[in-house]
């Protein structure tokens, strides 16, 4: 009998293993429940793309962006608002996976781990979500951007609080009247489900001179005293590096404001691969940011295997450099914020995120740039706008002290360059950072700048009116 007892103990271990397995499953359930619930076949959240029971989505001032009326999902009555916020709010198809309606479908429908789904109708509590975006800013920025008929993105965010005020991506469509995409129009809608603000990366061109500048500020003691000579082109590493103009004898600050390629190409080569790699790495170029559970597209900078000519081009944002619009906005925001970056968010209130409720998931802050470098960049980027851009366009960023840099990135093939403008305002009452990109267009100042101008003015007005 004793022997049997001892052997029975082994069977007891089976039971303990089973209890352990149940524990493991419970853990998996708690961690993944929301992802498991958000499935297209889940009939508990069916109808209108699973939004039949979804709550209201508001903008920061309480305008209704999307709501459910009698089982139908209804979007804002202004067409520009609808199109401008398509990639942020989403539509019934749930094809835009980074949009709030896709990401938070279960929370919008009132899902909770405790109650599950499908409470009786009269007791159902659907959750409303308030976004940080401003409807009119997005509408205006979208109209300005969409006028080019090109792919592009524009984002404006408050670099003190992390709140995104404007986030638009083209091409777009009207969620109230979604197009049927077929062979005849697929070119027009190529990449339409992608939010370019978060999920695309582009060759940066001259906006990358911000990173090269930072490397120079930290590693060249005579940066402000020496001069370079620009003859419009220069042979580096056996091949030519070209400039847009012949700047002649030029100092660093003028080179930045006039965006002289030769100076920055020479700086990059002089600093060398390790310094450039290290600075770009420190400033988060190769990093992905987590914005409300969405990972942004990573940028790219790696000159480990580049030859001297490629190293030279990499310093002016060509070679195989790439950056993401949201990433650039965060970088510019960090410059304006004395080196501290605040992680962006689209959610003002009510995502039902338990971790956020208990304050675990509050906006993250981290040091992205050394504060001394940040103040030097602040100075030179302010100089660029005040003493150069402002003379070329009257009323540019009127009412704001903006620091910025434009970029015109050659992408080769038969495409026109990517137009870029990134920057931020110094104003205490409107601490806004922005990034704007227009693909296949032309000069940054000509194409990206007008969109950024509109977005910044509207966003600043919104903040100043107490929104």
């Amino acid at each position: 009998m004793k022997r049997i007892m001892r052997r029975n103990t082994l069977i007891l271990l089976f039971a303990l293993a089973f209890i352990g397995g149940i524990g493991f499953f419970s853990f998996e359930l708690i961690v993944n429940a929301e992802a498991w619930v958000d499935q297209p076949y889940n009939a508990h959240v069916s109808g209108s793309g699973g939004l039949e029971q979804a709550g209201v989505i508001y903008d920061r001032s309480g305008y209704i962006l999307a709501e459910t009326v009698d089982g139908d999902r209804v979007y804002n009555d202004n067409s520009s608002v609808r199109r401008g916020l398509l990639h942020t709010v989403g539509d019934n198809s749930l094809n835009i996976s980074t949009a709030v309606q896709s990401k938070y479908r279960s929370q919008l429908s009132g899902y909770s781990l405790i109650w599950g789904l499908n409470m009786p109708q009269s007791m159902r509590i659907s959750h409303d979500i308030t976004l940080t975006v401003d409807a009119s800013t997005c509408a205006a920025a979208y109209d300005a951007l969409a006028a080019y008929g090109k792919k592009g993105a524009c984002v404006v965010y408050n670099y003190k609080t992390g709140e995104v005020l404007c986030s638009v991506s083209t091409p777009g469509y009207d969620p109230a009247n979604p197009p049927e995409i077929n062979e005849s129009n697929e070119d027009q809608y190529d990449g339409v489900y992608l939010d370019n603000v978060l999920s695309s990366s582009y060759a940066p061109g001259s906006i990358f001179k911000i990173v090269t500048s930072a490397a120079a500020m930290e590693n060249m003691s005579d940066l402000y005293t020496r001069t370079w000579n620009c003859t419009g082109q220069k042979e580096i590493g056996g091949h030519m590096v070209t400039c847009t103009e012949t700047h002649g004898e030029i100092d660093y600050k003028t080179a930045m404001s006039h965006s002289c390629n030769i100076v920055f190409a020479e700086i990059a080569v002089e600093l060398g691969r390790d310094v450039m790699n290290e600075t770009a790495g420190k400033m988060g170029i190769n990093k992905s940011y987590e914005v409300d559970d969405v990972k942004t597209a990573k940028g790219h900078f790696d000159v480990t295997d580049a030859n001297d000519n490629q190293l030279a081009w990499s310093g002016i944002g060509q070679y195989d450099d790439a950056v993401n619009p949201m990433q650039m906005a965060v970088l510019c925001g960090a410059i304006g914020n004395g080196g501290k970056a605040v992680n962006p968010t689209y959610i003002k209130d009510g995502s039902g995120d338990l971790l956020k409720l208990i304050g675990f998931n509050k906006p993250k802050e981290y040091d992205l740039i050394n504060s001394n470098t940040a103040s030097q960049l602040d100075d030179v980027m302010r100089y660029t706008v005040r003493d150069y851009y402002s003379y070329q366009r009257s009323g540019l960023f009127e009412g704001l002290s903006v620091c910025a840099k434009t970029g015109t990135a050659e992408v080769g093939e038969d495409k026109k360059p990517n137009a870029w403008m990134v920057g931020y305002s110094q104003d205490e009452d409107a601490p806004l950072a922005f990034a704007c990109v227009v693909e296949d267009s032309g000069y940054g100042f000509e194409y990206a700048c007008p969109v950024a101008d509109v977005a910044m003015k509207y966003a600043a007005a919104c903040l100043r009116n107490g929104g």
Partner: protein
Amino acid sequence: MPDLSFIFDAGVVALRVLLPVYAIVIVYQCYAAMRRRRRTEKPLVTLCNMKTGSVIPILFWENSIGRSKGSDVVVSDLAVSRNHCVLLRRKEGWFITDVGSTGGTFVNGVPIEGRAQVLINDVITIGSTDFEFRRGEEFQAPLKSSWFFQKVSNKPAIKAWKLMLMVTLFHFFMAVEAMYWNDGTNPQSPLILFGALAAVEWGFFCVSYFALRRVNFELEALALFLTGIGVMILVRQVERSAYIQLIAAAVGMVMFCVIIKLIEDPDKISRFRFPMMIVAVGLLLTSILFGKITKGAANWIYIGSFSFQPSELVKIIYIFIGAGTLDKLQTKKSLIEFIIFSMICVGLLALMGDFGTALIFFVTFLLIAFMRSGDIKTIILAVAAAAFGVTFVLRFKPYVADRFKAWRHVWEYAQAEGYQQTHVLTFIASGGLFGVGVGNGFLKQVAASESDLVFGLVAEEMGIIVAITIALSVALLVIYSRAITTRSRSTFYSISAGCAAGLLVVQLSLNIFGATDILPLTGVTFPFISCGGSSIMSVWGLIAFIKAADERTYSIKR
């Protein structure tokens, strides 16, 4: 005036919150009652070493005596064999059997042949040691009992009829929920099913209480509780299956009573061994010859519209043949018989080609082999197990590979191999802690939701708390069967109960973890809950072994 529909809805939600708590209370009451009405831990008799005067308490109904450390009575005397003899208690008194010792066993100086009765004050001689057989009362030192039976309060256990009332009420609440969530057709059908269920439950209770005069009903109450959940959950899915399930459960209850009666006398069991083997082989042969081949496996027999899986019943016979009384276990003949029988079963199962069944058989074989083996026999059995394993792997390799493909990657195969598991996970999460209401789930639209995926079905409709509670209530039978091991009337009962409980846990694990993608999906049933006539019958058959192992079953009458 307040909105009436709101009050009604609030009532239904309150019921959904109440049910999990209620389920926990029922399971707790069943287990609490299992600990009660136990005899106190006292030696039955004692053996007094006549040379040294030391007194050895005899605690069990069957005791092995020998030099081996694993013996119940260890005699450190070089003239004693490792396994010398077995001292047994039977209704007629105490007996001693020699199990092939070199020196032989003597009672009052006379060498024994076969089984010899021992009376109080008789002298038993083993090797060069003499023992005087004495009464148990003379032993005064305190003895430690299993923790399961310790600190039992003096409060009497819940009365059997009260426990039954609680169980029935739980099923009634399920019927109410199913009535609420209906699509307008047959609003009364859950109530009718509940009526039939209650009739079966109370009918069984009355038979047990009045005809068989059993005092204890907690194991049966637990089984009825689980069976009833399995039946009621079907009411909004396939109502007809619910009735078939109920009828099969009733047949299972009859089997339960018959098996307990059949194995009442542990010494007479060996008479049934051979006929049982014939029946088992016959059943397996029938399914090979007449079975309908589905998904490459000839496991089902169709009689009219009623399908039947004979291999489920063979499981019970297998345990029956594998277990044995302590004196029989220590002889080689029964072992060889068992191995030959196993080989035949393996061969037939390989012909049949059902992965889930073969797996369960393999586990049963390992359990039995492990429980009964000892010393040299372990080696023989290990070889047999290896042969079993090789056959198994060769036969089922293609199926196994297929099932492992999507394992832990179900979301990548959500429309193919992972279809069932992803749906289970989605709907379990949709159910939350308290479920969406009986009959209101969507997992029921997925194939095999009432059998292979039933854990998901219960979790979706009644909440994860109920699902886990019923799973644990089955798993905890292992603790119960282990606690009663040393108090069983024979090793036959303790081995068969341990195997039955172990088998239930293995089935439970394969079912739950298969459906939730923690293990590969194998198509094994959830004991008591899964829909399937032969499955429910075999589960009732299995718990008969656990019931029989509890000494109260035969010794106490009302």
